[in-house]
């Protein structure tokens, strides 16, 4: 006769249930453990244990591990690119300004929060361009000297600032009663969604100078921003459309019954609700915009990844490929992962607010 196995202590039971429930599970778990063991040990060894941290040149990297000295020596380049050293305080100042505005606006108790947000979105971008580019008393810094993480953030934020309002307009256009406006919006959205971003960046850098009046020069960086903004606007439009469609018709009908016109209904009733629903989807589009900014490398604009790539060509630091990639990759990963976690928390908050 079979006797029941004696009960296991709590954590062992959990371990058994989660990892060793059947013999197949056991095999899979052991295999996983083996893989993790074989991968993580050399990785940790290379990243931390055997790595060189102190020094100033390649000769200080004597160990087998990663040469973080290289990152330390080139850290400023990774952040600012070729931005002139005496002017870098301007970038820092702008960063602080944006950070402060972001923190202030994320505080829910801020008086007149909505109005402040709109004011900040209108006032800050021109200030940013003035600080970065110069003029009006500041030394001019040409855009080809910009680079690194600062350029990545510039591209993402400015393209996003164009893409969000444009995307909202396109989404409204796609759901418009007027067939011509609907048609134009659909063509715009489907065209930009249908072509690879890399071709759009090519297109912007080649065609924009061609279609502008002679003597009117569009800055290289501005071309990239416009190209990125158009594509992302098309994707944003689809994200917003999701929110518009989720809104019950009764909302608009009730507003119409109250005698409101189209723009007032849109501004006061439709958009505040629809945008709240679309926020997670729009954040995801912003993440993909952030990742797409790397493509400006193709038209020789050196964002964070471009600077990492260019650093490989430095004869004083031959063979630092892995270090450069790991550093740049980690920054992208933390930024995107952070954003997506934030988007998930927003989604949860939204669901909780709807009592679902």
């Amino acid at each position: 006769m079979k006797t029941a196995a004696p009960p296991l202590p709590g954590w062992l039971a959990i371990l058994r249930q989660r990892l060793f429930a059947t013999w197949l599970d056991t095999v899979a778990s052991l295999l996983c453990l083996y893989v993790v063991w074989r991968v993580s040990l050399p990785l940790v060894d290379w990243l931390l244990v055997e790595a060189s941290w102190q020094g100033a040149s390649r000769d200080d990297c004597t160990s087998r591990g990663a040469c973080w000295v290289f990152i330390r020596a080139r850290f400023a380049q990774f952040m600012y690119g070729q931005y002139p050293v005496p002017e870098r305080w301007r970038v820092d100042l702008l960063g602080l300004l944006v950070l402060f505005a972001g923190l202030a606006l994320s505080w829910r108790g801020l008086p007149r929060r909505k109005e402040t947000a709109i004011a900040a979105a209108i006032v800050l971008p021109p200030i940013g361009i003035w600080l970065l580019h110069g003029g009006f008393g500041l030394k001019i810094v040409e855009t080809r000297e910009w680079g690194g993480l600062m350029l990545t953030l510039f591209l993402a934020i400015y393209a996003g600032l164009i893409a969000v309002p444009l995307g909202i307009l396109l989404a409204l256009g796609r759901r418009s009663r007027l067939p011509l406006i609907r048609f134009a919006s659909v063509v715009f959205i489907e065209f930009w969604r249908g072509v690879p971003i890399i071709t759009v960046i090519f297109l912007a850098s080649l065609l924009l100078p061609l279609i502008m009046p002679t003597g009117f020069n569009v800055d290289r960086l501005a071309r990239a921003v416009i190209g990125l903004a158009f594509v992302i606007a098309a994707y944003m439009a689809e994200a917003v459309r999701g929110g518009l469609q989720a809104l019950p018709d009764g909302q608009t009908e009730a507003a119409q019954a109250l005698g409101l016109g189209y723009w007032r209904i849109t501004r006061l009733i439709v958009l505040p609700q629809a945008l709240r629903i679309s926020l997670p989807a729009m954040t995801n589009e912003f993440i993909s915009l952030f990742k797409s900014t790397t493509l400006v490398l193709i038209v020789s604009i050196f964002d964070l990844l471009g600077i990492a790539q260019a650093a490989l060509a430095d004869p004083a630091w031959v063979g630092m490929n892995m270090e450069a990639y790991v550093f740049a990759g980690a920054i992208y990963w933390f930024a995107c992962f952070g954003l997506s976690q934030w988007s998930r928390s927003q989604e949860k908050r939204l669901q909780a607010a709807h009592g679902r």
Partner: protein
Amino acid sequence: MKAFLRDRKVRDIFWQVLATIALVAVVVFFVKNASDNMVKAGIASGFNFLWRDSGIEVPFNLTGYKPSDTIWALLWTGIVNTILVSVASVFLATVVGFTVGLMRLSRNWLLSTLAAVYIEFVRNIPLLFFVLFWYFGVLAALPTPKESFDFLGVIFLNRRGLSIPTPNDLGGFRLALLAILVLIVAQIVLARWARARQARTGQDFPVWIAGFALCGALPLALLVAAGAVTSWDQPILRGFNYRGGFVLVPEFVALFMALSTYTAGFIAEVVRGGIQSVRQGQIDAARALGLTPGRVVRLVVIPQAMPVITPPITSQYLNLIKNSSFGAAIAYPEIVAVFMGSALVATGQAIEIIAITLGIYLAIGLAVSVFMNWYNARHKLVTR
């Protein structure tokens, strides 16, 4: 008059006319500037340049293209290379994506955590990063041809690329392919017969096991047999490099690995979402009816999950095809690199070349979405 201005129809027409005028004005403005600028730069427009000699070297091509061929042939080479890397990556991305997606759903904590780590790692890093990483980080660090990694002594991986053997004649494989087609037809007939018999008598036939033998094991055996009787062109180390066989250039390998591992992360999430969308009640009910676990998956879970999975997975495939343009960053000769890059620099025909390139991608997208609509209409879940 006031009533006329407040009429909805009148206002609708007014706004549409206004929008049309604005759009046309913008387009006319741009076109006029463009033609002025082109006249100034001395660029002739038109598509005649397509029949000119290209004079552009393409290091990796399957079409037998030579630099003395036309630009048209160059474009075709680019298209073939795009299709090649896309098809190969779609295949690997699907296999890895489904595996990781299923792992993510596993009861086994380690398996599901590993899958989650993979998904979060891949999805939060730009694709260009992976392309450059594979190309400059991994493949550049590979050994020289002399110290190649060899797989069973027939496939060799080194920094010049992946050398694979090629068959000298395809006769054996043609026969095998014919036999496989016959087997597939046999399987279809068998499945129909089994279904009819089950409907008539309720008797069950192990169609899946038969299918596994007819469409999996036997074809594999046939292919192996065909390979055994064919003579192969083997890559052999001569001097500093491997000669013979076919060399997949490092650009291809890097782009292929980056595209497939990246897209796999997105496919895994789609698969997980699709399977989780099947309600637990369905599975419980199937179990209560006494179906075996395999049949629960085959008859209840998969048929309900597939319609949910297919549309987003197609859009992932479409993304992958568009993303194959990232090859331009490492000079893999696909459409954007050879046509929008080299040919444009050589001819200066910016507008025509951009129009053709965008047209190709839009056509691919349109074809895929037409196919998808057809497929969805056919496989729509019938609900009562």
